[in-house]
């Protein structure tokens, strides 16, 4: 079976329809990426835009990368940010926090107490740490793949992951033990 890289290279070299196979391979995953961050309706609306942007940008893809998923997540992330900017009418120079969708995500989360605690702790993370963490936890990317999706060095992602996990550990401490400590 051809790698994503081979298919994308073929699509650049006179067979643009080869790109559709790449989309078929990853469409459920990319829809999930969008849905987890913006809700199902927004994912439905934005998925086509991701494919069109990816198709237009495929000439810059390194065919040596067999799996296109990190690259596609990076494009989906840019599409989401553009959408949030447009919705909030904040202008192109808005800070990253101004387009942070986490409040919307929290609203969709399970109401179980521990899940809410964890969600609150994740919400309190700096956006850059949260993005790195969720690319690994939700999209099952390796740190190297998450770095590719975010366009930052691997070491940066590893540092962000370390800080994020350290920040979440207190939330994950067993509740009975905490009660015992108070006695």
């Amino acid at each position, binding site marked *: 079976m051809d790698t994503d890289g081979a298919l994308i290279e073929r699509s650049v070299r*006179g067979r643009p329809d080869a*790109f559709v196979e790449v989309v078929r391979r990853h469409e*459920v995953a990319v829809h999930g990426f969008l849905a987890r961050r913006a809700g199902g309706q927004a994912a439905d609306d934005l998925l086509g835009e991701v494919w069109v942007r990816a198709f237009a940008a495929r000439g810059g893809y390194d065919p040596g990368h067999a799996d296109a998923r990190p690259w596609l997540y990076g494009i989906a992330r840019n599409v989401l940010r553009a959408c949030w900017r447009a919705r909030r009418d904040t202008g192109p120079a808005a800070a990253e926090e101004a387009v942070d969708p986490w409040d919307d995500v929290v609203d969709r989360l399970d109401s179980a107490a521990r899940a809410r605690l964890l969600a609150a702790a994740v919400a309190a993370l700096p956006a850059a740490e949260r993005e790195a963490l969720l690319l690994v936890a939700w999209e099952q990317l390796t740190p190297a793949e998450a770095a590719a999706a975010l366009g930052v060095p691997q070491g940066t992602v590893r540092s962000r992951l370390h800080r994020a996990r350290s920040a979440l550990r207190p939330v994950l401490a067993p509740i009975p033990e905490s009660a015992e400590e108070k006695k």
Partner: protein
Amino acid sequence: MTDERADAEGAGLLRALGQVAPPAPGVLEAAREALWSAVAEEMLSAGQTGPAGGAGRARAAGTDRSRDGTERRRTEPGP
């Protein structure tokens, strides 16, 4: 709780928080339609008719038929 156990439990909880429903029927196909429009445009601008016997040709032909259909509707008499 050790750091490793906390990380493992945290990863499990986070995965649970990230569960979403699969796309509804037709959503993926609709998104692919947007892509096919871009693909067909590039193929047409390059003077291609699509790969012999492949899905590309079928889609390119389908695109042409749609365009023809639109043109036919335009020639239909109005009410």
